[in-house]
């Protein structure tokens, strides 16, 4: 699996994502500074969690306009994979690679806790090893994870089977309990929970491993 991780000023889960990739694939991902204009030749691009540009203006709004994002868009159009985690998901909605928007949490507070996710869609390379309805434990840590889409858009993305994960117990007010979403083709996925924080470590078994292992099986 050849992966690249985009580093924006304010990204803070870039190292964690890189560690997860190394752990599963044994290969170090390329760390790509946001000012670059061309991606290296990779199968997977990860937009990591954090607070790109301090979340100023809106989370992800300024990062979405970084020069590297043009090539990320191009990478996705060519059918290769993009995973946006937390702040990365916010960037993907800001740039329009995924529908909807992520608003401040319903409680207006930052929430850091483990949550149970139901796998809704298994026809993406990220979730192909899961079964529909399977429950994963993956933590969230965000202030703006309240997914919102207008009713018509929401119906459309539900009809197109774009919902990848739903919260079992909604922590932030997201419509239809949406925790993760894909584009129609399924090669771009955004999710608020952090799979890279749910890695098997010592005695602790983590469900994050399985998501990255699914990718390994697809990408080799």
């Amino acid at each position, binding site marked *: 699996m050849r992966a690249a991780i985009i580093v924006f000023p304010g990204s*803070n*889960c870039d190292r964690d994502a890189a560690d997860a990739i190394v752990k599963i694939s044994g290969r170090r991902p390329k760390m790509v500074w946001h000012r670059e204009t061309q991606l290296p030749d990779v199968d997977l691009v990860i937009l990591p969690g954090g607070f790109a540009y*301090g979340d100023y203006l809106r989370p992800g709004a300024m990062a979405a306009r970084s020069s590297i994002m043009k090539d990320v868009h191009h990478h996705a159009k060519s059918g290769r994979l993009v995973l946006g985690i937390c702040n990365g998901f916010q960037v993907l909605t800001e740039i329009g690679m995924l529908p909807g928007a992520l608003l401040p949490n319903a409680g207006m*507070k930052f929430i850091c806790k483990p949550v149970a996710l139901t796998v809704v869609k298994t026809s993406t390379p990220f979730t192909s090893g899961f079964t529909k309805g399977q429950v994963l434990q993956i933590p969230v840590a965000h202030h703006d994870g309240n997914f919102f889409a207008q009713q018509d858009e929401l119906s459309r993305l539900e009809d197109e089977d774009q919902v990848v994960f739903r919260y079992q117990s909604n922590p932030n007010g997201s419509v239809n309990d949406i925790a993760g979403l894909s584009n129609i083709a399924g090669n771009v996925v955004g999710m608020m929970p952090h799979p890279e*924080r749910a890695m098997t470590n*010592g005695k602790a078994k983590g469900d994050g491993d399985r998501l990255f292992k699914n990718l390994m099986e697809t990408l080799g």
Partner: protein
Amino acid sequence: MSYLSTPTPEQVAEHGLNTQEYETLCKQLGREPNLNELGICSVMWSEHCSYKSSRIHLAKFPTKSDKVICGPGENAGIIDAGDGDAVVFKMESHNHPSFIEPYQGAATGVGGIMRDVFTMGARPVASLNALRFGEPDHPKTRSLVAGVVAGIGGYGNCVGVPTVGGEINFDPGYNGNILVNAMCVGLARADSIFYSAAKGTGNSILYVGARTGRDGIHGATMASAEFADDTEEKRPTVQVGDPFTEKRLIEACLELMATGNIIAIQDMGAAGLTSSSIEMADKGGVGIEIDLDRVPQREADMSAYEMMLSESQERMLIILKPGSETQSRQIFTKWELDVDVIGKTTDSGRLVLSHKGEIVCDIPVAPLSDLAPKYDRPWKKQEKAPVLDANTLPNRDPIDALCRLMSCPDMASKRWVWEQYDRHVMGDTQADSANACDAAIVRIHQTQKALALTSDCTPRYVKADAFRGGKQAVAESWRNLIAAGAEPVAITNCLNFGNPEKPEIMGQFVRAVEGMAKACEKLSFPVVSGNVSLYNETNGKAIPPTPTVGGVGILKNIGHAIGFGNAKDGDLLYLVGQSNGWLGSSLYARDIEGLSGHRPPPVKLSVERNNGKFVAKAIRRSLVHAVHDLSDGGLACAAAEMAIASDVGLALEANDEMSSHAWLFGEDQARYLLAVPSNRLNQLQRLAYQRHVSFTYVGEMVGDNVKIGAARIAVTELRRKWEQWLPEYMESINGNESK
């Protein structure tokens, strides 16, 4: 008014210098200072920067051991974690700003202590916070809690350093003066640590980070004065934090450090450009010339005085090796940070500032540090507090008392707080506030080693007996690290007291320091860094004396980490340490009987040490399923916490040597509760016998209820009571609805 003119006596007084201090200054200069020079001197000689009331007593702390790499005097303390790993840490107060503007006050407290740590070449890896608020019913308390917690989270979450632990207390004594003590821990390589001595002349001084604005002018002076009713008017002196800049500053500084271009580096903390430049020059034995026109400025027409005294956040001063300016600038430009060479080091031994073509300050550096006032202030020993006779207290239903204590503000679950903190970023958190463990556990990245971190103080003990309370704070920190499976190594501290000019307050300070020093010495637990916060008073009323201890321990093998959430049905409960039913200044006495001010429990350091070594051995040999230190609320509360965390009931034995409340809620020190699998009991008993440790059967883990004699409560019900107080309190519109 010209800043180049000689100040009037009123201006001297406004700057907080007394007549004698002003005379010393004039004598050193050989003339009267101008207003710029007076401003600079006043912040350097403020209590906050000069430690003038505390210095002679701080010298009593032991500061060395074979694991100490750097003790007090630098930006932070450093210990050796083996294999070339070094742990850099410090705790600092941000009390005054947090009371005036809780969000920004707490946020900049977190940011400031992080800078102290990464200045030394360490990547910050964990934050802790010790918070003390007024009584819940006080009209300001709720908004202060909300603001401080949001500020800590808002800053730490954005920078991406996990907030892994801390403590929160409520007491009417903090109604007018809350405490926000922030601790940061970082990791560096022992062979690449950076210090602040600006050695060598003719080297460039690089200013990096945020621009200088008018915020925080005279913050250090504010932190050295009491509050009165006009406190609100002080809001403009509170600094505003920008965690996004801090994050970029960390990455850029670590990147620059890796180039080898740095001779010295210092953050601009209290007293900003003034204290950073003077401290660097003083430690390096050089002079400094600064062209203030080159300082990146946020606002137009700033005077030299304002620039030198500004406490704008997220700024650093760096002395560069000659010829490395261009490469160094490029790194900061990449991170979109302001950067400029603002001056150079000289051989004059003087701080010379020019602004708009004029010399606006020209003063010798060394005297400002060396001749900083140092006071042996008069102090009064407190009278011995009376001993509370437990037998005079009425018998009460033990389950009812337990429920009241477990749901009281100090003991109740702090989930509402820590769920707002990112506790897992960086991927190395093994145990945080959400986990049932007496210390936070953070893995040393990509190793099998881990850090154990804790913050402790029991102000009600210190208030009743400062010496004993000081000892206890250190002993509890040590015990918490032992109970987590770690080897305690060193502490940082944050000494929060009232006005040192009052002999009884100074007495609290002196005796608490002496108690702490004694415990540090006997437990081989040196002090490597710290901070003193005095004048914590409002309208003449001092806070309870609060010497917060930040303890750091190391686990050679993270697999030895243990908590109190893994007790199993059928485990036997054993108590390590002697119980004498000590209720003086206990949580029970305060919250159930409304009694305070009695003599706190004795702290026998040799017993503490012996019991701790025994528990450490039991953990390393995997003889126990769960370990919990006994502190607030004694045996019953420790057992209840173990039951809640393990989701198993328990039955506690009665003790016929003392009354039930003394047995259950006494706060004798040096005690631990162990959950022992029955097949390990023989080994443990043998070990306890060999080591002369008091090891007593007190009950067993069984069923779904917490049972004390014939009384019982379901674990789920007890958990509900423990969980509900804080969210109900925070989410009610006014205080009455929380009842």
